[in-house]
């Protein structure tokens, strides 16, 4: 049975196909990133002359596109240093507020029975059901009416609302793996609920909280739609994502666009490599059961 012809053929074919398949996937995922970095360091005239060239001698690489992107507008650049600071501030603001609020929420959802717990789940689901573009309309109208639309902190509020539910979900998944017995012991010793969270639950959950925070930072850093809608008229408040998207006019060469894209992508990939394992486990923990 085990020696059947079909069995041997399949095993042999798969033995060859498997490394090929893995190589295929690595190639299709990595090549665009490689091409992005490569183009950002070439001269645009050379790219137009020879677009298919994917190996460039090190001596021919140039950093001119990066200089152009990073230099302030007053010196003829695109002013990306400013955008990097804006994105970092928006990201950090979102992370701090979202974490504080979602830690409390996730604790409640994972540990306590309270009236309306089920409807809270439904409420969070609704954030994912409604198209962001649907939310964008009333928020755009409201903040225009209040004349606050170009403010960075308004964007932070929008991002907090967008990331809170996923944070509560990820942290709840983690809290459920922390044994309740420790908390019960503290409770017997007379600790209050907030003391328990601060002294027992939080220290145990530090890695999960860090991973969730990085995840939120990545969402805020990558976000495009709301940044475009709210900030496009306020150049000094642009985030990096928005700044790159505005590099597409005729005078900007593709090499500059790619340099901007590299500057936008590198911080995210570094953060991701830093916390990949924790972040992905927090996301998929619920899925393993079924």
């Amino acid at each position, binding site marked *: *049975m*085990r020696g*059947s012809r079909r069995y041997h053929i399949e*095993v042999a074919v798969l033995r060859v196909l*498997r490394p090929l398949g*893995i190589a295929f*996937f690595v190639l299709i*995922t990595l090549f*665009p990133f490689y*091409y*992005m970095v490569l183009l950002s360091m070439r001269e*645009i005239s050379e790219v137009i002359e*020879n*677009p*298919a060239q*994917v190996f460039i001698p090190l001596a021919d690489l140039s950093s001119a596109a990066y200089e152009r992107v990073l230099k302030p507008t007053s010196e003829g650049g695109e002013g990306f240093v400013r955008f990097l600071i804006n994105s970092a501030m928006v990201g950090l603001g979102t992370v701090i507020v979202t974490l504080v609020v979602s830690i*409390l*929420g996730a604790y*409640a959802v994972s540990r*306590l029975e*309270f*009236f309306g717990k089920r409807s*809270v789940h439904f*409420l969070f689901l609704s954030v*994912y*059901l*409604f198209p*962001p*573009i*649907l*939310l*964008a*309309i*009333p*928020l*755009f109208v*409201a903040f*225009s009416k209040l004349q606050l639309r170009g403010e960075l902190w308004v964007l932070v509020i929008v991002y*907090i*609302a967008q990331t*809170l539910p996923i944070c509560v979900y990820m942290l709840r998944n983690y809290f459920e793996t922390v044994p309740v017995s420790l908390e019960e*012991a503290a409770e017997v*010793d007379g600790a209050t*609920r907030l003391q328990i969270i601060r002294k027992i639950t939080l220290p145990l959950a530090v890695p999960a909280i860090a991973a969730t925070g990085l995840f939120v930072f990545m969402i805020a850093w990558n976000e*495009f739609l709301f940044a475009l*809608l709210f900030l496009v008229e306020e150049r000094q408040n642009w985030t990096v*994502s928005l700044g*790159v998207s505005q590099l*597409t006019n005729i005078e900007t060469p*593709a090499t500059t666009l790619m340099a901007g*894209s590299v500057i*936008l*992508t590198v911080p*995210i990939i570094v953060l*991701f490599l830093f916390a990949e394992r924790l972040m*992905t486990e927090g996301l*998929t923990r619920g*899925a*393993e*059961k079924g």
Partner: protein
Amino acid sequence: MAAQLEIPAPPPAPSRSRARDTRARRDSRAGLALVSPTVIVVVVMVVLPVLWALILSFQRIRLLQIRRLDILGGEYTLRNYDLLINSSDFLDAAKNTLLYSVFGTIGAIVLGLCAALLVRRSFRGRGLVRGVLLLPWVAPVVAIAFVWQVLLSPQLGFVNAVGTNVLGWDSPIPFLSQEEGTITIAGISIGVPTALLMVILFEAWKSFPFAFLFILARLQAAPAELEEAAMMDGATPTQTFRHIILPQLMGVIALIAVLRFIWTFNAFDEIYLLTGGGAGTEVLATQVYSFLTARNDVGASAAVAMFMAAVLAVLLLVYLKFFGERDRMQ
């Protein structure tokens, strides 16, 4: 420590039930207090705006008037919805959205499933490969959309350079600005919606890591005994996949399909950045945006967006009807 954890001798029954009562009430109060900041943010920034968008969709509001706008006042009219039903642009966008979401979702799941099966068993460098395969999903959409745009460009794009130099194409293909192209295979010409196909490919490429991640997690949680038993009984690898592995994955695949469909259906960034909604790739989300910004028509944009939400609500109800029962049993 252990001594403290031991349950004290049971007090008489009535007082114990009272203690449990107050305990439950205290928990309930604490739970509500702790969850309320989250609920308040979501209600103020999501629920109320959605309700307001519903109202806006029944009003004639142009962006220039919003300074003077009275939030709930104004006349109510069906004009926005009327306009949509009779607009061929809207129907085209609805059709494109459907094609984009269905094929984008299928593409992402098929790629993700293949990748997960390939990476499933350990090999040297597996952790690294897993990390690399997640990159399209974590990288900023603005950056990767522009890389694709440059790769596919007719003037300086890598794909067209390879196509014309190596594969012998007559002329470069404007992948993202050609609404309809023809492929000739064995003398038969087939019309292809080039740009729409490209944005679908992009969506599948960008989202397959999400499917990959969840399917891989499920595969690794699956018990090995079943497969070993099947192998012992002489099942070939493809038979094992079809009869043992795939059935275990159906639950997670259905979940991914729903989530990916919703997110692809809602997607704005990808198409806006790749084609700007041109060349036959206009979807509902980009139409909402152009009603809101280019045409200043808040009412019409809200109507399109409400239509999107309604479609998703119906689909979600259908999903819950079919899969919700099963979840409750587990």
